[in-house]
């Protein structure tokens, strides 16, 4: 498995995945920085909160879901193009190892993206001269929790990217489902049924205001993990029986 993972890393070394993973969250941080800079100096402004809020809306709503779409499209496209599956699956390696190593690679890229985002927030806050202690529970914990809440999106995009050779399908599906995110996220009743809202709602500070919402958030994390395991399990089962031709 470790060898497979190493090989998968080598395959994407020249694909600029990590350049994309570094660059995109910086755009969100720049937006948050600009927002916080504009309101800096106003009385009773929580600069760290403003910086984080200004960055997370675009990041959680748009950048992270689309990034997940693109990452898994790139990872699976390597084999889809030039009949790479035939060559790969005729090698003496277990199919489960191939499947899981690609999934792990994608998850590492998503985690890296989140870490760049939170480091960007920290650096921006320091540059802006945010007063008081750094609210690590918001700035560090929430992006990491966003990884868990984005697991359903990861699983769905991974499955679709594997299943369809035409790269337009996962890209189209990812774009379609990202579109109504902000609308559904504003609904206190229906957001729980739409996984694309989970990352932005995880990261927005001060959103949990009642016991009912706390319960819904707990359900959200549970649904995220369970749906991830289910979809990945189904995908693995189908991949094991995939015809090599």
């Amino acid at each position, binding site marked *: 498995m470790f060898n497979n993972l190493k090989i998968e890393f080598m395959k994407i070394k020249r694909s600029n995945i990590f350049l994309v993973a570094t660059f995109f969250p910086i755009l969100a941080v720049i937006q948050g920085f600009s927002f916080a800079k504009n309101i800096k100096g106003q009385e009773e402004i929580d600069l760290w909160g403003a910086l984080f809020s200004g960055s997370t809306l*675009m990041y959680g709503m748009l950048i992270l879901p689309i990034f997940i779409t693109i990452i898994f499209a790139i990872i699976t496209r390597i084999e889809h193009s030039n009949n790479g599956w035939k060559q790969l699956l005729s090698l003496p390696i277990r199919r489960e190892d191939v499947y899981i190593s690609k999934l792990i690679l994608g998850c590492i890229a998503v985690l890296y993206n989140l870490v760049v985002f939170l480091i960007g927030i920290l650096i921006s806050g320091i540059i802006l001269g945010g007063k008081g202690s750094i609210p690590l529970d918001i700035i560090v914990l929430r992006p990491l929790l966003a990884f868990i809440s984005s697991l359903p999106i990861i699983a769905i995009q991974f499955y679709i990217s594997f299943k369809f050779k035409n*790269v*337009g399908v996962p890209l189209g599906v990812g774009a*379609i489902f990202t579109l*109504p995110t902000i609308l559904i996220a504003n609904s206190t009743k229906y957001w729980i049924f739409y996984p694309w809202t989970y990352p932005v709602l995880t990261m927005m500070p001060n959103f949990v205001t009642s016991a009912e919402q706390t319960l819904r958030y707990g359900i959200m994390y549970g649904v995220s993990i369970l749906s991830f395991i289910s979809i990945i399990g189904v995908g693995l089962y189908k991949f094991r029986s995939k015809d090599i031709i």
Partner: protein
Amino acid sequence: MKLPILIKTELSKQRRGFIWLMILGIPLGTTMAMFLDMYIRYHDYLYVKGQELGFTSWDILLRENHRVLGWGIFLPLFIAVIATIIHYTEFEEDNWKKLLTLPVRRWEVYISKLITIVIFSFIMIALNSLGLVLVGKVIGFPEAINYRLYGEYILYQYVAILGVVALHNFLSSHTKNVIIPVVIGFLGIIVAPGVLSKNPDLAKLIPYTYTYYINNLNVGNSSIALYGGIISMILISVVGILSFNKKDIL
């Protein structure tokens, strides 16, 4: 002049393709999202707010679709994906060699793809607006539908997206990695609002911003979408044709 035949061929290639997932799925999704939005917020909030601001229900629906849902933001990204799908076959099946050895002029091949992207984009835009009309009828808006407003909304979008269509036709026909144009489209829609707010003059030069100017409730800005769309399409297409003519067949 083989252009009509080439366009017909391009459309035939997509007859059973996944592009219909985009063309039909996206408007269906926006219709459902707008229905949900109106169902939840129209009677208690949006209608009252609209009355205060002097907007009709149809104005509100358009605004919700374009700004709140984000149709105006995402439209360039959808076009990027449509362009990717249309060019996908040529790169994946190595069809460019076969296509460019045929006795057809290269600029006709290039323009046929451009027109195909335009056709599918137009269908998607029209279906989105038709979906809005359907939502309004089902919800039961008290005012009569403003056909002129919705007609203008569709037409303005048609022209505003021409620059993005030309740009992504150029990118997709020149880049072997089909994902790069989509990444650029994604970058465009992220950067566009920031440039619009910080440097409105620079924003007039970026095709990804033109859909932001489509706001029938503030007609003064909409002409930028028209001029920008037409001029950027002409300029980018000319550059694209000149570059495509020199494309190596290998």
